[in-house]
C-alpha cells in the first residue's frame, strides 16, 4: 500500500492505527503520476496494479476508469487476480 504523503506522516498513520503491515510513501507522487491516476481536490486518486513474476502488469484499475462510484475493487477481487496469475 502506497500513500502520497511523507514517510514521517505515513509512519504516524501506521502507528496511530496500529497497523500490522507497512505502508510505503510516495511523497513526490512519482508512482501516482506514472500510472496516471489523476487528481481530485488536490489528492491523487486511487489505483490497483497487479504485476506478475516477470514484472508485467496483469491487472490495472484506476478510479478514472470505470469511475470511482461504479466499481471499486476490494481485497477479495485482487486476491482472486493474484491467485489466478499464480495458478496459471
Amino acid at each position, binding site marked *: 500500500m502506497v500513500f502520497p504523503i511523507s514517510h514521517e506522516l*505515513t*509512519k504516524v498513520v501506521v502507528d496511530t492505527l496500529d497497523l500490522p503491515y507497512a505502508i510505503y510513501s510516495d511523497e513526490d507522487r512519482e508512482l501516482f503520476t506514472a500510472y*496516471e491516476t*489523476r487528481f481530485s481536490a488536490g489528492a491523487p486518486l486511487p489505483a490497483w496494479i497487479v504485476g506478475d513474476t516477470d514484472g508485467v502488469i496483469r491487472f490495472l484499475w484506476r478510479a478514472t476508469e470505470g469511475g*470511482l*462510484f461504479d466499481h471499486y475493487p476490494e481485497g477479495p477481487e485482487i486476491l482472486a487476480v*493474484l491467485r489466478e496469475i499464480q495458478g496459471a
Partner: protein
Amino acid sequence: MSDEPTTEKARRPDPVGKAGSTAIGEKLSALRSGNGPGGLGLSPKEMRKLVKQSDGVSMMNQAPRLSADSVGPLEHMLRMVPTTRRHKEPRIKVGDPVVDFSLLGSNGETVSLESLRGSKPFAIRLTRAIGSGVI
C-alpha cells in the same frame, strides 16, 4: 433567442439539468421552492450561462487543486456531477511492464520493483487518503 436546444446541442449532456435532477439537486430545489434546477433562484438558461462562463463543469476533469479558492463558486460545486472518468486513454495498460520504483516503508525498509520481481505476483495499492477508512 429560444431556449430550445439545437440537434447538436441535444446530443451533448446537459450538466445543469442532470445535476438538478439528482437527489441533492431535487432537495435544493425543494428547499428553494422550485426556482429551477438546484433552486438558487436562477433559471436553467441563466445557470447554463453561469456554468459555461466560469468553467464549473470542467472541474470534473480532476485537475490538481492547490487551495480552496481555486475550486470555484458554490453554485458550480453544487451542480457538479460526481465523476472520475477520464477523457483520454491512459498510456499505461495491462501487458505493459510495471513502472520501476523504490519506496521507503513505514517500517524503515525500502521496497523496489526489483525486490518484488521473480518470486510471486504482487499487488500495489495506490491509496488516496485516510478517512474513517482507507479510501
